[in-house]
């Protein structure tokens, strides 16, 4: 396996002026917003290493500021994994023997050797390597890489929602609370995507001094309103995008579509996305006799999402819990009015009555009412759509997010020097 991490990544001889960041605990290709962040950082002159199992495409690797660190996951046949661990162990003494002894102390705490080897397997790729910032885009991943926090490179962790707002409530995952507290304690800085998440995370010991709220961003050049006003006919087009999982509360959205139909409003509801609860959505569509008006599209490319958004009269987010919905921001960027439930950080993106409506969670009747108001008043929809577009340009632009993230990393790196 060709290692693409160059020599100046080793502990000795780092003299580059550029800020160097490693993205750890991800799989390739990562979510679109992480790809955009990587691209933006490269453009801002940062050297990026991605630590993952899958080899990134040549269009990434050909870039001189982009590097790949092979960090395999513990999957596949046991024999192959054991051999791989042994190989990495043999290669490692040349660099970072202090790291190895650190990993050793960590591994010793785990009694069962069957659980101990995967830990070696996970940590060894990082032995002896240093960056200005070790960045975990998901704190769920950071939890399983705790020893990397001790290596001396400052660690930045992103806090995106379910990890602090849902998972710690689950009695079967009580160990998570402890792990969360450790990452918050040891991280040099914590990035929260919303104020709401910051306050949730504070319950698990996050020091607000360390935290920085950087809201997600959309590319307003890509997600733009439709150019010419197409007459939509008399059908009211409602769209939603998101994984098919319980958090998205589709059942409430579908109940609301049913009552719109019952009140004689012609609607079409598009759901874009895939996920484990597809059968639940399908069942509900059948059960409520909505086969003719609801279309389940499956996952779509961003171009297709944009096209569908541009043809929509309203974007509906029926979630029970959110960080802040990227899908909703994209809709706003396309100049579509939104109806969203009041959860997570949604109020940080939408003001009730300005860019759309904010309604209580788990309440189909409230969604229905908001949708009816919009379907009765197309002018209101247009005004709200414009206001949404403006808000995105002002507060959720990509360049702003990258600047904020870069300054967080620079400050953190400087503080730890």
């Amino acid at each position, binding site marked *: 396996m060709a290692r693409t991490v160059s020599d100046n990544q080793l502990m000795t001889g780092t003299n580059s002026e550029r800020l160097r960041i490693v993205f750890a605990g991800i799989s390739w290709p990562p979510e679109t917003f992480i790809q955009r962040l990587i691209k933006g950082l490269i453009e801002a002159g940062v050297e990026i290493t991605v630590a993952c199992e899958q080899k990134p495409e040549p269009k990434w690797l050909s870039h001189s500021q982009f590097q790949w660190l092979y960090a395999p996951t513990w999957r596949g046949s046991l024999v192959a994994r054991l051999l791989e661990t042994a190989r990495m162990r043999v290669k490692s003494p040349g660099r970072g023997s202090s790291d190895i002894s650190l990993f050793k102390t960590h591994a010793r705490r785990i009694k069962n050797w069957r659980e101990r080897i995967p830990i070696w397997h996970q940590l060894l790729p990082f032995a002896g390597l240093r960056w200005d910032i070790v960045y975990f885009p998901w704190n769920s991943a950071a939890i399983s890489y705790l020893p990397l926090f001790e290596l001396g490179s400052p660690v930045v962790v992103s806090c995106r929602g379910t990890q602090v*707002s*849902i*998972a710690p*409530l*689950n*009695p*079967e*995952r009580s160990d998570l609370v402890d792990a969360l507290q450790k990452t918050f304690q040891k991280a040099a800085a914590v990035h929260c995507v919303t104020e709401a998440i910051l306050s949730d995370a504070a319950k698990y010991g996050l020091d607000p001094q360390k935290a920085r709220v950087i809201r997600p961003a959309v590319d307003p050049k890509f997600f733009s309103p439709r150019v010419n006003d197409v007459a939509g006919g008399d059908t009211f087009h409602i769209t939603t995008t998101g994984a098919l999982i*319980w*958090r998205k509360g589709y*059942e409430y959205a579908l*109940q609301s579509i049913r009552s719109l139909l019952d009140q004689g409003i012609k609607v079409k509801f598009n759901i874009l996305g895939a996920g484990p*609860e597809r*059968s*639940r959505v*399908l*069942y*509900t569509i*059948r*059960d409520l006799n909505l086969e003719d008006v609801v279309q389940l599209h499956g996952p779509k490319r961003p171009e297709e999402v944009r096209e569908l958004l541009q043809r929509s009269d309203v974007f509906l987010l029926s979630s*029970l*819990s959110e960080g802040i919905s990227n899908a909703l921001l994209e809709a706003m960027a396309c100049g579509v009015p939104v109806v969203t439930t009041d959860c997570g950080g949604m109020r940080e993106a939408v003001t009730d009555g300005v860019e759309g409506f904010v309604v209580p*969670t*788990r309440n189909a009747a409230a969604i229905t009412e908001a949708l009816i108001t919009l379907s009765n008043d197309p002018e209101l929809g247009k005004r709200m759509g414009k206001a949404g577009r403006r808000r995105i340009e002002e507060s959720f632009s990509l360049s702003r997010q990258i600047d904020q993230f870069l300054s967080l990393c620079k400050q953190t790196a400087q503080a730890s020097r």
Partner: protein
Amino acid sequence: MRKPPGKIVLVVKVFPMISETFIVRKFRGLCESGLNVHLLCERSDAASWSKFSDLRNNEDLRSRIHLAWPHQPRLLAVLLLPFAFFRSLLVRPRTTVKYLTRGYKKFGLDVFRRFYLDSGLILLAPDVIHFEFGAIAAERMYLGELLDCKLAVSFRGYDLNFVALEQQDFYRDVWEKADILHLLGEDLWGSAKRRGCPDYKPRVLIPPAVDTEFFQCEREIVERVGTTERPFRILSVGRLEWKKGYEYGLQAVNALAEKGVECEYRIVGQGEYLEALTFARHQLGLEGRVDFTGACSQGEIRNEMIWADVLLHSAISEGFCNAVLEAQSMGLPVVCSDAGGLPENIVHGSTGFVVPRRSAAKLADQLERLCNDPDLRSRMSKAGRERATSRFKAEEQIAQFTAMYKRLLRAEESFSGEVLATGRTT
């Protein structure tokens, strides 16, 4: 000694399973009533066996339970194929040759793969094969032709309401080739028709049975409940999955509390939806009122039913629901949704209340009504017990199955479109 009656083989995936105790009871009941019944499963694990000690200790019953040869990993299956072949040839030479010659005409060389998968059935040389779940029957309907036997298929909810919804023809073979269908009730028969089953298909409607000996108690009706001294006790029993609609139950409890009724809600069961439900409990501010007990044994469920004042079942999708049957047998009033067979399971207004599914407000209204009316609770308790003992007795169910098998074995040709037996529940 009289000649043993025709051989009936029940086919399931995993046996025994605590969540499918009804299969264990049916198997026992049929054996005890003198039918020549065998059971074939793909998997069986020691941990579950420990929960069925009387079954484990019964030599005769155990000798009638057969485990199919493993088909995973594939390499092992390939290695075992010759052994399966010679064994079948030795034990059942005629059936084996018949299977292979007929099968070769139908499937070509693929017959060998199928032969391996079916070898458990070939060895048993059944007169009737009964697939206990529709989903495991869908691709094996050729067996009737290859083994010269009758085919019965049970549909219990999940198989009709969820399996392969996007494949229109998934059950076509079953509708064409099964000699008889067994459904739990009218609702599932409706679902079968919606999935393409013709109107004239022979069928029996036999609801599940409940062990009315085990599930019984002297119920004491507490006059005044819903106060801080004695909160109104609400119980739900079932796997934690979205189909059970616990979210609506939680919202109903929330609405009840907002009406000023002091209540406690216990949910018995485990499952992947625990995280969603603990989040809902948190979001609705119900931490002090709602308890998730985890999985419970039958005995513990019985105790919870003694504790409770009402059983709440807010399902979105349901086959028939054993917990609701058990509650009636225990004299526990039921408030449930109208999902699936629930309206056939309880008698609205007599043993409990049925409200439209996904309606927390209506659930809350009926709960409040029960809470405020001890006479109503007492009447419903008696009516529930009465209904369970008169309609859902295990002996009754076994008699209906026995009648079904006897007719299948007697019938020279396929039945025409009559409903053979029906455990009419209303």
